[in-house]
C-alpha cells in the first residue's frame, strides 16, 4: 500500500535524480538525515524539493547541489526511551524521559549565499 508519504531511500534517490535534469548531470548530496533509519517524508514537499533541486541543477553556474535537512524550528523536543534488557535481550524496564535540543538556525548555511529564495510556508502551515 502506498501512503501519502515518500520512503526515505526513495526521497534521497528522487533528489539525486532531480539533479540530473539539466543539460549536465550534477551531483546532489542529501545531508542531515544520516541518523534516521526509517522515515516517511512528506510527499507534497518532496515534490517541491525535487523542483528546487532541478531549478538549481539547470543553472549553468551551479556545479553541484546539496539538500540539507535541519529542524524547521531550531528547538526539537524528543522522547528518550531508556530500556533495560535481560540476558536474553528481553526489555524488562523502561523509563521515558524528554530531551529538548537546540540547533543552529539556517543562517549558518546561508550567510555567504547571495541569492536566497525562501519557499517555506510560515510555521504552522503545510
Amino acid at each position, binding site marked *: 500500500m502506498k501512503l501519502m508519504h515518500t520512503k526515505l531511500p526513495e526521497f534521497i534517490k528522487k533528489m539525486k535524480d532531480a539533479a540530473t535534469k539539466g543539460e549536465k548531470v550534477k551531483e546532489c548530496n542529501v545531508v542531515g538525515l544520516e541518523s534516521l533509519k526509517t522515515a516517511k517524508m512528506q510527499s507534497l514537499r518532496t515534490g517541491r524539493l525535487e523542483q528546487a533541486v532541478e531549478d538549481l541543477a539547470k543553472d549553468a553556474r551551479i556545479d553541484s547541489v546539496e539538500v540539507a535537512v535541519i529542524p524547521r*524550528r*531550531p*528547538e526539537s*523536543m524528543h522522547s528518550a526511551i531508556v530500556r533495560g534488557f535481560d540476558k536474553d535481550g528481553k526489555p524488562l524496564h523502561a523509563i521515558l524521559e524528554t530531551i*529538548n535540543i*537546540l*540547533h*543552529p*538556525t539556517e*543562517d*549558518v548555511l546561508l*550567510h555567504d549565499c547571495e541569492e536566497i529564495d525562501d519557499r517555506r510556508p510560515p*510555521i504552522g502551515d503545510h
Partner: protein
Amino acid sequence: MNRLKYRVIPEGMLDDILVPLTIVLIDYEDVKACNLTMREACDKIAATIPGPAGLNMFDMTATTTNSDGVMLDGSMTCMAASDYGKINNEFGYLEMVELDYSDELIQEEPHLKQWKINFGDRKLIMGPDPKKKNIPIHNAVLTGRAGNNNSATEMMHCITMEEIILPISGQLQLMRDGDVEVGGTGWIISVGIGMVVAEEYGRIVPHRQFKVGDTAHKSGEYAKFLKSHIPIIAACKSDLAKYIIKALEAGMIPGKDIGASPAVLAVARHMKIKPDFDNMTKASFDELKSVGFTKEWMLENVEALTTDEIIARADEIIPGVDQPKTYKASDIVQIKYVEV
C-alpha cells in the same frame, strides 16, 4: 543622527575563561533617548558585529526575580541573538512581559510579596509570553551560531557548543559599573540553579511547573555536574547578599517562598531564619546534601550577624563560583556607540 550607547564583552578569552560569543548589554533608557524601538536598537547593534552575539536589554528602573525568586533592582526587557550581523526574523528576538499587580498573582506566587515591600515603585518585568514564542520549550532566541537562553542568562555558541552563564544579578552589576566575579560555575551553583520558584511567566521555566521547595533538576548526585564546567560572570557576593537580605527581611522563607539555594540558605543561617523543611522535597534535600548542605548544616548554630556584617563578610559566607576573580565592570566591558 544619534549615537546609541551599548556595552560589550567581546568573544574570546577573558583571563582564563572563554567567552564563546560576543555579549552585548543595552540600557533601554539609551534606546528611548534615540527614539528607537527595542528591536530596532538590537538590529542596529547586531549589524556592527560579524560573529555570533547575544544581546540583552535592561530596564534599570524595573524589577524582576532571579532563579531563587529573589527580587532585583533591574530587569531585562528583551533578548536577541545575532550572527553575521543579523537577527533571525523568526527565532532571534523576544520581548519580556510586564505583569500587573493582583491579589491572585501574589497568592499564586507568594515570593512576589517582595514587590510592594521592596520595589513598590517599579514595574515588574518577567520572562517572555509562552504563547508568543516561536521556540516552544526554552525561553531562548537563536540566530546562526548564537544562542541566548533562559531569558538572557546563559549564552551559547551552537557550533563549538561552548556556553557561559550570566546570572541576572551579575549583568545588573555590569550595567551599573559594579564589581563581578568571573570563574567557573562549579557544583554549588549548578545545584542552586535548580531551586526555582513557581512562576507563570518565569524567566527560566514558565507555567508554574515547579513548586518552591522542590528542585527542577531532580537528578540527585548528577545535578552538581550539570553546569559545573561552564564559565560564569556573577555579581560580587556582597551585592548578591544585599538582594537576599532584602528578600529575607521582607519575610521570605527559604523553601516556602523563595528557593532554598545554597546562597539563600547561607545568608538565612546568619539571620537565624530557618528554611521550611516541611515544604522541601526529598529530591531537593538530596541535591543540597550532594554539595555539602545537609539539614544539619542548615540547623547549625552559626554566629548571628547583622545585615551589614553579612554584606561585609559575604565572600566568606556565600558559597559558589570556582576560582573566582573579582573585576570592576569597566575592566571587562567595553563601551561602544553606534550611529542611529
